[in-house]
């Protein structure tokens, strides 16, 4: 066997071993999380439950969420309509179940796009520093100096009511927040010994960012993402409530509350259920984010 072959065999073996090790470590981490962060684990289970409900919404919803039944409008909760019906006779439970899709789609899209863009911007800013950093940071400062909901409202209203426009406006407010965290981490990492070591052996900037930057900032990004998720869901509901978010007849929870606000006295259940669903889902994300933070970095809390 030639030396090169031997080397590559050795390398393969090493890679496999390190992969096994990281899988094992991940399993152990999960176990530790379940045992030390019970509330966080229950929240995670609840989030998974909502995701499943959203996925199979058409199967479990008893009625069509946008089918109107003029004969049964504003019906109080009863055996047929467990959560009652709204002003157009639509079944509240079915709308609630389908509405979870909108909250989750907006939440996931916004958070994932914001993480990607924010990480890119933050890494570039933090790694290069100097004038690049200065320009990027001043733009981020300007965006963050506008109260988030006002900026979102401004952009969403200009673009018109549509789910993708809600996502665009929420991404614009979330990106600077991720970029700032990533930049901070990047600057910290840039000064660390192991990055200096890899630079001294001639590693390229790109390689240093990819190999050392990314893995080291996963923890703060994941925690931030979980907390941003809750804020995003509330923001979507707020925009829809104002009539500039998700357009009707989609069963967005915010839109349902907006309809409900006209029938507060005659049909209070319309106000109750969508708000509860919204609050509990956001609560689950916040509790999960908190638990994750305690778990990943006890010093941060």
């Amino acid at each position: 066997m030639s030396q090169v072959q031997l080397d590559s065999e050795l390398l393969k073996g090493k890679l496999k071993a390190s992969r096994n090790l990281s899988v094992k470590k991940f399993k152990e981490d999960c176990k530790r999380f379940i045992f030390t962060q019970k509330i966080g684990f229950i929240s995670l289970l609840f989030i998974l439950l909502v995701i499943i409900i959203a996925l199979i919404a058409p199967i479990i919803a008893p009625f069509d969420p946008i089918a109107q039944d003029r004969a049964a409008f504003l019906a109080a909760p009863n055996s047929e309509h467990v959560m009652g019906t709204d002003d157009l006779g639509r079944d509240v439970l079915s709308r609630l179940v389908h509405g979870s899709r909108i909250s989750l789609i907006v939440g996931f899209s916004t958070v994932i796009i914001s993480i990607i863009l924010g990480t890119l911007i933050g890494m570039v800013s933090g790694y290069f520093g100097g004038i690049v950093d200065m320009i990027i940071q001043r733009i981020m400062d300007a965006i963050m100096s506008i109260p988030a909901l006002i900026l979102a409202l401004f952009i969403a209203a200009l673009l018109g009511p549509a789910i993708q426009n809600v996502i665009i406006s929420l991404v614009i407010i979330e990106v600077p927040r991720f970029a700032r965290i990533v930049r901070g981490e990047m600057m910290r990492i840039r000064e660390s010994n192991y990055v200096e070591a890899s630079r001294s052996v001639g590693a390229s900037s790109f390689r240093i960012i990819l190999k050392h930057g990314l893995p080291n900032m996963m923890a703060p990004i994941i925690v931030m993402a979980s907390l941003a998720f809750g804020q995003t869901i509330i923001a979507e509901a707020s925009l829809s409530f104002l009539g500039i978010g998700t357009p009707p007849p989609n069963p967005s929870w915010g839109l349902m509350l907006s309809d409900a606000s006209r029938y507060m006295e005659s049909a209070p259940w319309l106000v109750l259920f969508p708000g509860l669903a919204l609050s509990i889902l956001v609560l689950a994300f916040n509790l999960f984010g908190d638990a994750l933070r305690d778990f990943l970095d006890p010093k941060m809390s």
Partner: protein
Amino acid sequence: MVEYIIRRLIFGIFVLFIMTAFIFIIMRAVPGDVVTLQLANSGATAEQMDAMKAEMGLDKSILGQLTDWVTKAVQGDLGNSLWSGQEVSQIIVDRLPVTIQLAIMSIILAILIGIPIGVISAVKQNTWIDHFLKIFSVSGLSIPNFWLGLVLLTVLSLALNWIPPLGFQSFAENPMVNLQQMILPAICLAITLSASIVRMTRSAVLEVLHSEFIRTVRAKGARERIVIFKHALRNSLVSVITLIGLQVGYLLGGTVVLESIFALPGLGSLIFESVLARDYPIVQSAVLVFGAMFLLVNLIVDVMYGWVDPRIRTK
């Protein structure tokens, strides 16, 4: 200190300028303008519309319009509403006090609720009281404030047959009516804010309580009340003040939805109405005012550090 404040002010103006350009470009890059909206059903010809746009200065390039606007704004002329023709600066002066009053009431309420609960939580660390208060604070962070507003309105009108008086009146005109109109939206904003104050106070007080100097204070025989209020609470104020500065953005954003629900004629509802009507000068100026308030509050917060914590003052 003075030099620091001046530097921060210059920096603030710079940020406001970038903000203006940002808003300006987005607003005009998006299709739909006020002339098309106003004349949509009037059967006006394309020439008439163009003439009207020229009259409003909307025919120039975006950069040209931006230069025009900034030149005038620096001289204190924020332009006129494209719909009513009223001076924008006058509209903002009329509307701003409502939003400021709402924000101040919310902050005061949030402090009154948040700090005591945070201190109790810290003192009773890991007891059932602490756990219960923790649930309260996380829930407060998770409940959308506009839903809280709807629930309060519903419960009060169904249970007590009470609704806030209609027709807005300022505090100067009629304090009783004004407070009745403002208290519910202020509570809604305060709940979320107090929830974060609780968490911050709790962890800050805990940190101080476990520090060396508190052991010394206890060792010299100080009463527990003095330990907590004079030493622990005072030392945790810095982080609470920082938090309030950071949360001002949330607070100002929240006014938009709550002013709409409770029909308060503030800056938040103004911005909402104007964006929908594509009334550029109003939106432009109102966003700028919100941004300026945010930067100003954060400057005040940074200056207050020195007042609360003399160690920072000397640096």
